């Protein structure tokens, strides 16, 4: 259980970034910080961070965003599941192959969120809701390096 607090801290920071006030025109582009963070930790420590973490994290995010309870939980569990299946391949991918996979993973995340929001009757009017997948993929190298440094520094295992 070494360095557990580093994981918690990174999720907390991701949560703050997820609700940070942004200018109106950037609203649709906001990267899915929590999903990015989760993807990293699942790939790095699949035996520690998995479905249950994703579930709790998603519920926390639902509360933060004022979304229906279960929306982000559902999306993040699906993402975590895919990561758990793919992590051995993802680890040997090059950076840009990884970014491509992250694009797909966050895209799936957005689709699931959109599906649940449509149940609620407040779906997005256009395909703009997929933009976070693009911005998240572009930010992946940054997140990867940052979290990897953190993990090595504090020997999280």
């Amino acid at each position, binding site marked *: 259980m070494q360095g557990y607090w580093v994981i918690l801290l990174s999720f*907390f920071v991701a*949560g*703050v*970034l*997820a*609700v*940070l*006030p*942004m200018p*109106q025109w950037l*609203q*649709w582009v*906001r990267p899915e910080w929590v999903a990015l963070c989760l993807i990293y930790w699942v790939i790095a420590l699949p035996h520690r961070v998995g*479905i*249950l973490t*994703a*579930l709790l994290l998603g*519920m*926390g995010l639902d*509360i*933060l*965003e*004022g*979304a*229906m*309870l*279960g*929306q982000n*939980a*559902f999306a993040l*569990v699906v993402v975590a599941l895919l990561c758990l299946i793919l992590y051995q391949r993802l680890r040997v991918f090059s950076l840009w192959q990884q970014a491509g996979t992250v694009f797909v993973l966050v895209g799936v995340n957005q689709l699931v969120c959109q599906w*649940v*929001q449509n*149940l*609620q*009757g*407040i*779906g*997005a*009017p256009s395909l*703009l809701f997929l933009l976070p997948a693009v911005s998240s993929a572009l930010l992946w190298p940054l997140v990867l390096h940052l979290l990897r440094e953190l993990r090595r520094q504090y020997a999280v295992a």
Partner: protein
Amino acid sequence: MLAILVILGLITADLRYNRLETTRSLLATLGTPVYWVADLPLRLRDWSDKYLHSPLSLAEENERLHRANLILQGRSQQMASLQAENVRLRALLNSSALLRDDVLVAELIGVSPDPVRHQLVINKGLADGVFVGQPLIDADGLMGQIVEVSAISSRALLITDATHSIPVQVNRNGVRAIAEGTGSLGALEIRHVSATTDIELGDLLVTSGLGGRFPEGYPVAVVTEIERDPGRAFARVVARPSAALDRSRHVLLVFSTQDRRGN
């Protein structure tokens, strides 16, 4: 597998039965620190706006406020006598007296990160007597209502959210209508206005007090667009919200006298 079951359970409970109000309220209390931290940069800017000023600009601002205050005082001079007159006249008409509402100043600590949800988080909660359904106004008009209360913060739904509608009346002639949110911050749509209804560009829409949720007489929106298409049963009327929905940092929570009596 278990996780999927839990999620489906949660979604059904929240969507169909609204069973999770108390749970949400509890968890939201735990989530408040995140909003507080996310708000820090803005708070810092506010602080620097407040304290890092040249004496000259302070003096200028002081003078401007003095002038504004003078104008407002001038306007309110007759208020007392007008109010007394209003009470007398209403008594003559046998209608109940209009009482002044109390307000509580609250500060914005967050906005919904999801562009399809128009929600605000404010820094007052159960501890300050905030309740679900409480109207929220700013200096210019009605903003929305409280939909979720935690111990120290609460979440408000704006009138422009696609799931919100509010009973209004035209200030000029009392025509009643329903104003629905459109999901865009700058527009409300007035639904089911027949083509012959007396409603004009620039008309001020105020809360009608019908429905019992919003007190009467708060400005809601100004009509900006009317389209009377003979081919359709209803005219299309669009109005711009009076409140500065995307700019107000300080908001007012309204306690109507009726609420007090009800509690």
